[in-house]
């Protein structure tokens, strides 16, 4: 038996028409369709069968291929979604390239929707179209890209550490790149986490010990991504470490005695020596996980009195105050002064509304909900009431959003422990003024729970539940050309279909750089990202769909129209050849949309598996059949 040359020899097309046990043959004259098909160009075999999907049906095809009668296959039967893979499988088993196959849908799109002679005519036309395309088919092979068994994680908070841990557990080498001298990110600013009440420090210590103790993970602190190029399987990166300055030095001073792996409250987990001078490391990574985290909203000066009245603080500041205050019972003491009443104001720097809230210094509003602050605030309120029963707590909220498992209990317990709530509208927020009957400040607010009755509460402390906002990542965004949403967080491809992926293959999102999330959610997201990265790197190569753009250099004139049209970054590049500039596709970056095909006036670029020539052959066949018979 001659070796099949997979699409290189003259087409010999086999057409197989299915009766589908009457589902097709009751309305379509199968014999007539077979007869017509037999007369089409390149068709060497035309047969029918009651059930092409059955083993005997598939055997027909396999026999014809093996005996050399056919080298391209057309099956006319039900919708391709049901059996295209069945028939491709049969062809592959016969030793032929499975892409030398075309499917004609004559059940869902013919016999079930048309009756009478028109049905047979249309079936014939669809078979002719499939034969036309089959004549133009080429063998395709999946594209393989070598993949480095190494991943780089940017960000050393809980999400980054979890991602690094999970990547390493799959046998990959990992570089964990953290800007500050410490691991732990924003979670280090917490005391207890909700809803399990686990101490943030213990959580971080556990995670950091897994990361620091894993020889597959290299931690780079005081480090940033300085150079970035390449694509999935082979990102070429440079990591630059610089001696710490400014705030980092203050934090280092607070942790000067801490050994590597040790948690220092409100600072982070010490992670070994810091660089004395700038140094740069070059890496080749197969995949990247971005876990660059978030920042707390900083209230504007004068927003609820912040920055003007020393009794107005943020929630992270309160958490720290409470952690520092070892005494319990009676009232909370702040700067030696007892706090009789405290007001907690929700939604500061979240759920902002154009026209009501003034934009920040960058001109931006935080229209998003920050997701975690309701529960965090209630947790703080409960703790206040528990530790300092003589401190009265007032919460001013818009909607209480204790959505998560175990979160609603904080709301219930806050009420039961005597926290008094007031509901405000964004148009009429609480107003903080200096002085009161026997208090430092007065908070006035129209209470929506009492038809707008004005409350005027004398308090000694106002706590602003500040929201989460995206970290200023401008440099990284520009360097890696990362997509950013209207909310300024990094933007995934699709929240449901590809929730942790970016359009560029091999780059994944983890944690609050994508959207506000709590600790569990960030750890979960990191796991999801690590699972995706692990899946593509585990085999040592990345297998990509063959349906990508391909340039015919003999037709290309180097106009660059395809490069301009291309929707993916750097998927097509112009390269110098002895004949001048020519376009070249990087299959690892091409997403297969074909926009370049439409843009090329020379017809020099085509989408493999879906070429214009194939479509034209289909149209020609349809028009010939339709007008030949129907006219």
């Amino acid at each position, binding site marked *: 038996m001659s070796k099949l040359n997979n699409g290189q020899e003259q087409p010999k097309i086999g057409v197989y028409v299915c009766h*589908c*046990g*009457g589902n097709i043959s009751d309305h379509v004259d199968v014999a007539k369709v077979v007869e017509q098909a037999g007369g089409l160009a390149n068709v060497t075999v035309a047969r029918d069968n009651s*059930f092409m*999907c059955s083993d005997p049906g598939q055997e027909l095809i396999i026999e014809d291929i093996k005996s050399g009668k056919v080298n391209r296959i057309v099956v006319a039967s*039900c919708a391709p979604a*049901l059996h295209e893979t069945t028939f491709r499988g049969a062809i592959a088993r016969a030793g032929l390239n499975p892409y030398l196959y075309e499917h004609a849908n004559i059940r869902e799109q013919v016999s079930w929707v048309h009756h009478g002679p028109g049905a047979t005519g249309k079936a014939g036309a669809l078979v002719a179209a499939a034969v036309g395309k089959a004549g133009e088919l080429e063998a395709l092979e999946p594209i393989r890209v070598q993949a480095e068994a190494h991943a780089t994680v940017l960000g050393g908070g809980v999400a980054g550490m*979890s991602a690094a841990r999970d990547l390493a557990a*799959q*046998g990959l080498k990992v570089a964990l790149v953290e800007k500050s001298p410490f691991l732990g990110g924003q979670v280090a600013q917490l005391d207890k*986490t909700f*809803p*399990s009440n686990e101490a943030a420090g213990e*959580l971080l210590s*556990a*995670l950091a010990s897994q990361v620091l103790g894993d020889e597959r993970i290299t931690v780079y602190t005081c480090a940033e991504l300085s150079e970035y190029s390449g694509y999935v399987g082979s990102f070429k990166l440079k990591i630059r470490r610089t001696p710490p300055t400014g705030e980092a030095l203050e934090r280092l001073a607070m942790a000067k005695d801490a050994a590597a792996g040790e948690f220092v409250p409100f600072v982070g987990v010490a992670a070994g020596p810091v660089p004395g001078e700038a140094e740069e490391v070059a890496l080749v990574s197969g995949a990247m996980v971005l876990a660059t985290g978030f920042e707390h909203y900083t209230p504007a000066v004068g927003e609820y009195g912040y920055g003007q009245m020393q009794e107005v603080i943020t929630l992270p500041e309160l958490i720290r105050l409470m952690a520092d205050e070892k005494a319990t019972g009676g009232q909370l003491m702040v700067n030696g002064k007892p706090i009789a009443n405290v007001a907690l104001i929700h939604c500061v720097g979240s*759920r902002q*509304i154009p026209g009501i809230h003034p934009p920040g210094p960058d001109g931006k509003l935080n*229209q*998003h*909900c920050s*997701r975690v602050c309701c529960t965090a605030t209630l947790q703080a309120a409960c703790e206040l009431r528990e530790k300092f029963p003589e401190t009265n707590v007032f919460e001013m909220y818009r*909607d209480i*959003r*204790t*959505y*998560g*498992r*175990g*979160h*609603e*209990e904080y709301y*219930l317990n806050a009420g039961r422990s005597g926290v008094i709530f007031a509901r405000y509208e964004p148009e009429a927020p609480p107003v903080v003024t200096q002085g009161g009957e026997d208090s430092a400040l007065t908070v006035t607010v129209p209470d*929506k729970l009492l038809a*707008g009755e004005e409350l005027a509460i004398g308090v000694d402390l106002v706590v602003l539940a500040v929201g989460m906002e995206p970290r200023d990542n401008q440099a990284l965004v520009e360097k890696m050309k990362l997509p950013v*949403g*209207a*909310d300024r*967080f990094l933007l995934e491809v699709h*929240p*449901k*279909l590809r*929730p*942790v992926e970016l359009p560029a293959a091999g780059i994944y999102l983890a944690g609050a750089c*994508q959207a*506000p999330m709590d600790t*569990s*959610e960030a*750890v*979960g*997201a990191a*796991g*999801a*990202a*690590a*699972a995706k990265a*692990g*899946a593509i790197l*585990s*085999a040592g190569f990345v297998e990509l769909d063959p349906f990508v753009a391909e340039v015919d250099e003999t037709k290309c004139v180097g106009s660059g129209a395809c490069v301009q049209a291309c929707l993916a970054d750097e998927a097509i590049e112009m390269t110098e050849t002895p004949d001048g500039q020519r376009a070249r596709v990087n299959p690892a970056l091409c997403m297969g949309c074909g926009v370049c095909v439409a843009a090329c006036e020379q017809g020099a670029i085509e989408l493999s598996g879906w070429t214009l020539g194939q479509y034209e052959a289909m149209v020609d066949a349809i028009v010939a059949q339709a007008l030949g018979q129907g006219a």
Partner: protein
Amino acid sequence: MPNGDTQKFDSLVLGGGIAGLAAALDLADAGYRVAVVEQDATIGGKMIRLSKVFPTLDCASCITTPKMAAAAHHPNVTLFTMCRLEDAQRVDGQVRARVTQMPRYVDPAKCIGCRQCEYECPVMVPDQEQGGFTARKAIYIPFSNAIPQLALIDREHCMMCGKCSQVCPTGAVDQLQTEQEFIIEADTMVLSTGFELMEDFPQRAYGSPGLGDNVISSLQMERLLAPHGPYMRALRPGDGKEPESIAFIQCAGSRDLQLGKPYCSRVCCMYAIKQAMLLSGALPLADLTIYYMDIRAFGKNYEQFYNNAKAMGVEFVKAKPIIAGNNPGGSVVLRYEDQEGGSGAVSREHDLVVLSLAMLPAFAPEEIVPVSAASDGFITVPQPKLAPTLTEMEGVFTCGAAAGPKDIVDSIAEAGAAAMGAAKYLAAQRGGQAA
């Protein structure tokens, strides 16, 4: 599946909804062999039954079908539909699961999904896939995008007239099928058993003994909104009127200690807003009102979605109304206190009322899998921070609504985390190397 047969996989995923499929695909893509065990006749879970999904408003079917097809065609995934897990224990390091294949009374190897039997069958049964608002037959394929596309007989309603056998082109009907038990052995397991809506809410309904024909559940509303729904447009089920006024009652069963459901069901605010938006597109003149306690638009782009709904004219009323009765014309009377305006008692009529019912776990692990249900009834995750998807059973993970109410985005993200947990467990078993 012959009785008593044993099949080996790397991982067993219990539940073929969106969370289970996402976890299965992640594991399969990493090279692990996965068995998906689904009790229903089709995979796809609740999501394939939805109309459009928030906050992107894309068509649920268009997002779910590719995942279903990917799982069905993946060389590393084997689907077991109509299969019930009897029990699963770790035996000699392996999760050993006893599974019962329930009879379809149709031979899956022969059925070609042509539905000739369904057209011929003389018995009409309320089609639960369409909220009960239309009929299916006693032999049927669940719906057009079900996977697998195989018929099954609803034995309870079948009159054994034999018409289906007569028309079946492949002789697939087999009334003599019986339950078959077999064993699946796997290193790890993922519990993605999803949720059900609270069913007994109508029995209390805050003061009204009966609810009437025009009070429906949120999943029923999904069917009314789906383009391939029972009426192919949004009509009220009591008499087919095109509703001019539709109300949503939030927290219908959720956040309620009295009902033993103190938790927030987490998705209802968003889907009510979404349904209201879709209705405002389908019925531009209709009044749409959402009665709520707190609007919980907490996810990415959710608050913006909520603001869009307000801008579109959806009315939000902070109140917990009661269903006071039905008017002879079919409208539903709601009664509540106007809290924000302070104008006292309000009585309002709506053509159609949707209850945003509480989400309950669909699976009780007791005596089946040695993991516990927490006080909320959902599967316990003892280390919510460091291993958010790990259950109390070694190498067994959970994701999606099985581990507490969750929307699709969060379910899929969690499925990734569960797949990661399972993959790590497998890698550790195999000495630190992935498949």
